C-alpha cells in the first residue's frame, strides 16, 4: 500500500494536479485501501494540522509584508540601503541585496520581498544601464537568502511541523543570513568591476540625514519584532499581529501613502497566499498520517541509520533530495512531509535540530531561485521583464556561490548555533 500511495502522489503531481490536492488524493487512496471507514481521518488530520497558534504567524507576517510594500516602506528601505552601500562598485546591486534582507526582516514571504524591492530598485538599475539579465539575477539571488531571515514563512513552518521553538529558529537564521548576504554582495562587487558599471553620485549630508530619518521607522519595526520576541515580551505570533498594526499605523498616519480603499486588495493578496500555504499544510498532514500509518517514516529512518555511516553522508543526501525537489516544486510540501521524518534521523546521528532546520531552510531558499520553477526566480524575471533563459546563465555564479556557502553552513554548525545559544535556547 505504501507504494500505491507514493505512485498516486507522483502520477497526480506529474499530471498537473495542484500539489495540495495531489497530497490529499494520495492520502485518500491509502485510507480507502485499508477501509472506507478510515476516510473520516481526512478532515480530522486536516484540521489538526491547522489547529496551531504558532502557525497563525504565517498569514499575519504575510499581511505585514503586503501592508508595508504598499505603504512606502519598501522605497524607504531601498533609499536607506543606498546611503550605506550605494557608492561602492555595483552599488545598486548591493543596495538590492541589502534592502531585500532588511525587508525580509519584516515580511515573511520571500516572493513578496523579491517583488516589493524589485519593483522599486529595478527601474533605477535600468536607468543606470545595468545589464537587465545581471540585475534580475542579483535580486533573484537575494530572494533566495530571505528564507533564513526571520520572520520567514519557511522558518515558521519548519518550527510548527517539527515542534521546535520558532524563536530559536529565528535566532539561528540570523547569522547564516548575514553570511550568505555578504557573500552575495562580494560576488556582485566583483562582477560589477568586470562589467565596469557606473558609480553612483555623491550625496550631501543633509540629504543623507533625511534618508536615514525616513528609514528609521522600517528598521524600528525589525527591532520591535525581534526585540519583542527575545525580550520575552511576546510570542512570534503576537509579534506578527504587532507588526501588522505598526505597519498599518506608519503607512496610514506617518507616510500617508496607504489608502483605505487599498485595504481589501492587500487583504485579498494575503488571503490568496495564505490559502495556498495553509491548504498545503492541511493536506500534507493527511498525507503524513497515512505514511505514519504505514510505518514508512520508521522504515525510512531505519534504512537511513543502516546505510548512512555518519551525519555527513546523511546531510549531503538530504541536501540532494531538497535541491532536486526544490528545482521542480514549491518548497513547503517537502518541508512539511520530510521534516518530521528526517529530523529524528538527524538527531540520532548527532546533529543539532536547529542546525538541521536552518540547513533545510537555506537549501529551499536556493531551490526558490533554481530553474526551472523557482518562485523567486519567476517573480524576479516577471518584475525585471527579462526571460528566464537570459537570466539563468547570469544566475549560475550566484547559485554556485550559495551552494558553496550551504556547505560552509553544513560543516560549521557554530555559525548557526552561537546566537540561539547566547540567547539561552538549548
Amino acid at each position, binding site marked *: 500500500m505504501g507504494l500505491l500511495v507514493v505512485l498516486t502522489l507522483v502520477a497526480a503531481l506529474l499530471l498537473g494536479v495542484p500539489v495540495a490536492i495531489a497530497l490529499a488524493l494520495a492520502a485518500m487512496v491509502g485510507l480507502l485501501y485499508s477501509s472506507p471507514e478510515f476516510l473520516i481521518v481526512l478532515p480530522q488530520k486536516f484540521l489538526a494540522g491547522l489547529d*496551531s497558534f504558532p502557525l497563525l504567524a504565517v498569514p499575519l507576517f504575510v499581511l505585514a509584508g503586503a501592508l508595508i510594500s504598499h505603504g512606502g516602506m519598501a522605497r524607504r528601505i531601498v533609499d536607506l540601503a543606498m546611503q550605506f552601500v550605494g557608492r561602492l562598485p555595483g552599488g545598486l546591486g548591493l543596495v538590492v541585496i541589502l534592502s531585500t534582507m532588511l525587508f525580509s526582516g519584516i515580511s515573511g514571504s520571500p516572493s513578496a520581498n523579491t517583488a516589493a524591492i524589485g519593483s522599486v530598485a529595478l527601474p533605477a538599475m535600468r536607468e543606470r544601464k545595468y545589464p537587465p539579465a545581471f540585475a534580475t539575477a542579483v535580486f533573484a539571488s537575494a530572494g533566495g537568502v530571505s528564507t533564513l531571515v526571520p520572520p520567514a514563512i519557511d522558518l515558521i513552518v519548519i518550527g510548527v511541523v517539527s515542534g521546535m521553538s520558532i524563536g530559536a529558529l529565528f535566532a539561528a537564521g540570523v547569522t547564516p543570513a548575514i553570511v550568505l548576504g555578504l557573500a552575495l554582495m562580494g560576488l556582485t562587487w566583483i562582477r560589477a568591476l568586470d562589467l565596469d558599471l557606473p558609480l553612483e553620485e555623491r550625496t550631501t549630508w543633509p540629504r543623507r540625514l533625511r534618508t536615514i530619518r525616513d528609514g528609521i521607522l522600517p528598521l524600528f519595526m525589525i527591532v520591535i519584532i525581534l526585540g519583542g520576541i527575545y525580550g520575552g515580551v511576546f510570542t512570534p505570533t503576537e509579534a506578527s*499581529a504587532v507588526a501588522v498594526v505598526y505597519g498599518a499605523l506608519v503607512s496610514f498616519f506617518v507616510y500617508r501613502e496607504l489608502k483605505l480603499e487599498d485595504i481589501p486588495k492587500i487583504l485579498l493578496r494575503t*488571503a490568496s497566499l495564505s490559502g*495556498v500555504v495553509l491548504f498545503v499544510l492541511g493536506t500534507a498532514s493527511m498525507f503524513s498520517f497515512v505514511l505514519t500509518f504505514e510505518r514508512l517514516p520508521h522504515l525510512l529512518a531505519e534504512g537511513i541509520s543502516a546505510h548512512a555511516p555518519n551525519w555527513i553522508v546523511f546531510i549531503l543526501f538530504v541536501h540532494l533530495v531538497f535541491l532536486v525537489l526544490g528545482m521542480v516544486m514549491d518548497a513547503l510540501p517537502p518541508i512539511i512531509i520530510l521534516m518530521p521524518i528526517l529530523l529524528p534521523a538527524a538527531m540520532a546521528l548527532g546533529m543539532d535540530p536547529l542546525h538541521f532546520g536552518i540547513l533545510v531552510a537555506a537549501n529551499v531558499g536556493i531551490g526558490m531561485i533554481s530553474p526551472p520553477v523557482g518562485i523567486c526566480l519567476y517573480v524576479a524575471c516577471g518584475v525585471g521583464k527579462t526571460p528566464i533563459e537570459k537570466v539563468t546563465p547570469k544566475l549560475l555564479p550566484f547559485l554556485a556561490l550559495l551552494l558553496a556557502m550551504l556547505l560552509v553552513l553544513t560543516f560549521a554548525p557554530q555559525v548557526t548555533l552561537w546566537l540561539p545559544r547566547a540567547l539561552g535556547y538549548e
Partner: protein
Amino acid sequence: MNRIGAALRTLVRHPLEAAVCTILVALVAVTFSQVVFRYVLQASLSWSEELARFLLMWLAALSAAYAMKTGAHFALRFVVDRAPPAARRWIGAAVAAATAVFLAVFASQSLLFAIEVRGMEAPATRMSMAIPYSSAFAGSTLTLYYALVNWRRELRAERGE
C-alpha cells in the same frame, strides 16, 4: 468617501472575499488585543488564543477556496505543457475529475466529522467544536465549486467560445 463606498459594495457582492478579509482583520484584532490586555490592562485573556486558532481554521478553509477561484494553488506544469493538445484536453479532464472526487469525499467526511463533534465543548470559549470544525466542510464545498467553475471555463476556452 465614494471610493470607500465602492470598495464596500464590491465586498458585499463578493461574500467569499468579504469573509476572508473579515477573518484576517479579526485575527489581527484578537491577537493584538491579547498583547494589549496582558501589558496595558494587566489582565490576560483566557479565550483569545483558542478563538484565534478557530479563526485560523476558517481562514485556511475559505482562503483555500479563494486561492482555487484565483488559480493560485501551485501545480507542476512542465509535463502537461509539453503534451500534445489532444492529450492535454484529456489530462485536463482527468485532473478536474480527480480534484472533484477528492473534494466531494472530503466535503462529505467533513460534514460527518462536524456532526460527530457537535456535542463537544471548547474549553475556553465554551462553543461547540462543530463551529471551528465545520470550516473544513464549508471550505471544501466552496473549493469544489470553484474547481468545477474553472474547469468549465477551460473547456469553453478550448472550444473557442
